């Protein structure tokens, strides 16, 4: 919904100043917009376009390429379960199925109370700790089904 707040706009200008060319700051700025609103809003993208001097379509082009940028609101906790090869063979797919049952949403969905968004993700570089997941990009290692229940409680 929103453009950047004055404080965030100030921060954005500071970030832009770190780079030889303004557009290089775009990914950190999209993160900033997402932190502000919980997702990357249309108005925020237009604001970023002004700040780095490109078209809004270019901002959208970059934004839509990257997995972490959400253009719709997500849950308070984003739970990313890894099912890639090292996790799969250690029970990652079963863990995801258990998470779907427990939270009552399929991977990609958000619980109706807006608490959890569940995702089926690719390797998150914790393979020797399989099966693993992240909650808001913080790691949980060697997660059992009971461990998962305790976590979401």
């Amino acid at each position: 919904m929103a453009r950047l707040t004055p404080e965030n706009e100030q921060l954005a200008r500071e970030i832009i100043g770190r780079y030889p060319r303004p557009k290089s700051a775009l990914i950190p700025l999209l993160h900033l917009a997402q932190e502000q609103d919980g997702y990357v809003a249309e108005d925020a993208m237009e604001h970023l376009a002004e700040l780095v001097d490109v078209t809004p379509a270019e901002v959208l082009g970059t934004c839509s390429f990257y997995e972490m940028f959400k253009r719709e609101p997500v849950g308070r906790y984003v739970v990313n379960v890894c099912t890639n090869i090292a996790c799969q063979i250690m029970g990652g797919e079963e863990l995801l199925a258990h998470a779907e049952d427990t939270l009552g949403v399929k991977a990609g969905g958000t619980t109706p109370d807006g608490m959890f968004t569940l995702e089926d993700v690719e390797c998150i570089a914790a393979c020797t700790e399989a099966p693993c997941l992240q909650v808001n990009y913080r790691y949980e290692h060697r997660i059992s089904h009971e461990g998962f229940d305790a976590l979401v409680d």
Partner: protein
Amino acid sequence: MAVTDAPRIITSRFGHDDAHTIERYEATHGYEGLRAALQKRPDEVLEEVKTASLLGRGGAGFPAGVKWGFCPPGVWPRYLVVNGDESEPGTYKDRLLMERDPHQLIEGVLIACYAIGCAQAFLYVRGEMAVAQERIAAALNEAYAKGYVGKGILGTDFSVDIVLHWGAGAYIVGEETALIESLEGNRGMPRLKPPFFPAAKGLYLQPTVVNNVETLANLPWILREGGAAFAALGAENSKGTRMFAVSGHVRNPGVYEVEFGVTTFRDLLYAPVYGGGIRDGNALKAFIPGGASAPWFYEEHLDLPLEKAAVDKAGSMLGSGAIVVMDETTDMVRAALRVVRFFARESCGKCTPCREGTSWLEKILERILDGHGRTSDLDLLLDVCDNISPGIAWPPKQTTICPLGPSAVSPIASAVTRFRDEFEARLGGGPVPVT
């Protein structure tokens, strides 16, 4: 000889919980390599790194010193870009180096900048690695405050600015030209190379050296102890040590720094101080020797040394030091599908054989797994593979801009060739032999 007495070069501080702080770092030889470098001329530092024969640790194993030397003379500015995008399935080492010992990486960056002649470096950390980003940000603040980074470093006229940058989730951005596109604020799609490698035309089309985190983390030790001491470790063509992540069905999954080139896969999988053998006394079925892109290895490859040339010759690669171990209970059709699905999801879509081919491979494997496979499907799989990577050879013949497309072919070619019976049993809809 399962375990050599090689020193730990890059994980030496992992025993300390506070290794990420500047106090601990300075108390454990921190920034001594930088001081040693600043006593020399930049070309002498480059020579030291060439003497060390430090191979790139990002997967392709290109010698770091040689790459630095490819920057065209007299063209400025030059940039150093640190590849901290670690996302090859099975790979788990750069995140540890960034979280546990960020100053070591920063010191490595400074040494490289001095040798190459860069006044600005970008540290590109994978978006999903929140702790690594925080630790590096904190370490950079400490290093700026102490005069290790910034203007007039340690009282010399050498100045470097290091910018922490972070991604937003896209495997392909680990490919160096895609990383550069991403750092320019664009969609992370690879550029065609050759004609120009980043060393000649990279960020903003200026000379740019892209190096992996682990590669740079070796530099403080090399400058402190000397390139010759580094080259005394390892084998003829693989010097020093390397970090390997051993995951999957071993008793002790873990990340181990071992002497490069002399330790064997058997040592790493079975020695009690490393993998400790296959879990539950099961038999080994297959292992991925160097990340999801690598063709699979089997029992008969166990005695190969962890050495680039030997592994290349045997038809696979050491890649990013990611070893995934599968025991006899592993369902190979499921495993192959999971790896292929990864490449299908992560294809950037720029080249037709990769964009279309990888999703076709995924669809065909899915229907085989669901019991709807047709008898012609195995040949069809190989035919699609052949379209992505003609001849299904290793190293692959490339019809695509980057190696991602051909990477999807490796697991299929391995699984279908070696475990054809498991696939065929699925086609008939019968029970699956997992032996």
